[in-house]
């Protein structure tokens, strides 16, 4: 299964992931960083299994993240 991975501690809360893929992302009102919805968190690494289509869409998101903390796996 394709995966999206977010290394959350380095997120600077720019909000572009949420703009591009609102289906999977939210901006946390608690700490101002992006939340990968329903992802499993291991310490600061958040991982979500996604469909092939979501995975394709996430390519652009991964590239758009200014601090490159969104990876595809």
């Amino acid at each position, binding site marked *: 299964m394709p995966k999206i991975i977010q290394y959350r501690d380095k997120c*600077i*809360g*720019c909000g572009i992931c949420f703009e591009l893929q609102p289906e999977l992302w939210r901006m946390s*009102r608690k700490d*101002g960083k992006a939340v990968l919805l329903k992802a499993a968190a291991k310490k600061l690494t958040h991982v979500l299994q996604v469909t092939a289509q979501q995975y394709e869409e996430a390519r652009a998101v991964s590239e758009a993240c200014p601090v490159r903390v969104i990876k595809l796996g």
Partner: protein
Amino acid sequence: MDVELLSPAGSFEAMQAAINAGANAIYFGVEQLNMRSRSSGGFIIDDIAEISVRCHAAGLRCYITLNTVMYEYDMQLLQGILKAVKEHGVDAVIASDFAVIESCTRMGIPLHISTQANVSNLESVQFYARFADTIVLARELTLKQIASICSEIKRRKIVGPSGEIVKIEVFIHGALCMAISGKCYLSLHSQNASANRGACVQNCRRPYKVVDTESGNELLVDNEYIMSPQDLCTIPILDEILQSGVAVLKIEGRSKGADYVHTVTTCYREAITAIEQGRFTPGLIADWMQRLSTVYNRGFWEGYYLGREIGQWTKTPGSIATEKKIYAGKGTKYYPKIQVGEFIIEKGSLQEGDVLLLTGNAFGMEKILFDQVLVNGEKQIKALKGDKITFPFAHKISATDKLYKLLPATDA
């Protein structure tokens, strides 16, 4: 003269270096709401207490930068940070967004207006004086404009919320931006990385070619780095800057290391003292310039202060510092009774005559000579990977402390 020398602190090491080197105050950022959020190893909210305690114990003031663009979802984090700022007595918040200005005013937290607010005239100063006691001017003003703003503030008795005459702060050293302060969108357009959110990817620091899209011909540009300004260095004109009536002198560089902060702060501290004592000579200036050029720089110019219209551009992508530091190892132990520190060599080798640079949380930056160390307990002429070196040292050493070898930049 009681001008304040304000140094950057992107880490505890840099903060300690600023304290040791004679800064009057430091500024720092936490979490992602500051203009250096991209730089690694930043402070978190929980560090605010220690920063405040250590600075105040050393007689310095500390200011926190909260000067990015703020979004709706940032408000809770902002409030959390401001709560800690209030609780731990951070001396002021450096802000440009009105959400921050409004919250600080409500909470009774002193404010400084950031250069990001691009204050370039007296009317703006008067406006912001309702909220802030210190205002950082835009970096593009000339000394004449600055002096006129300062003298008008005094003449019109423009006071801040504290009732004191508003203080003007200017940048005296460090990187300049190709755009007007706070108004660059290049990084945002090219890579979605907003500079005003602390994520600048520094497009301006790269070389560019100009291509005619019709013919495909490339135009030759004299200097490919058409957008990359050299770094600001005002030591040669520091006396004029002081005469202009500014109250705070700021050094840029929260992404720089302890050695940088130490060297730059020391030079400017010495220069301020020399001016106060009436012995600000060309010889001394040459010496400071030489020392400043040993640490990170893209070549120096005196910025827009003397009324130049076009900036001076760099000729290389990175630093032209005359010295470079090469990582050699890390701290392993400290023997407090005999005051001896121990580092392990992890990379390369050290030998007789080498100058070693140590950086650490407790002491900032220190330099020692290889000739002062013992290698695995004995006097030797060389130390290799895996060897442990020990030497008398007055400060605690921890595992995050680093050891570098200093070399002239030409010896790759």
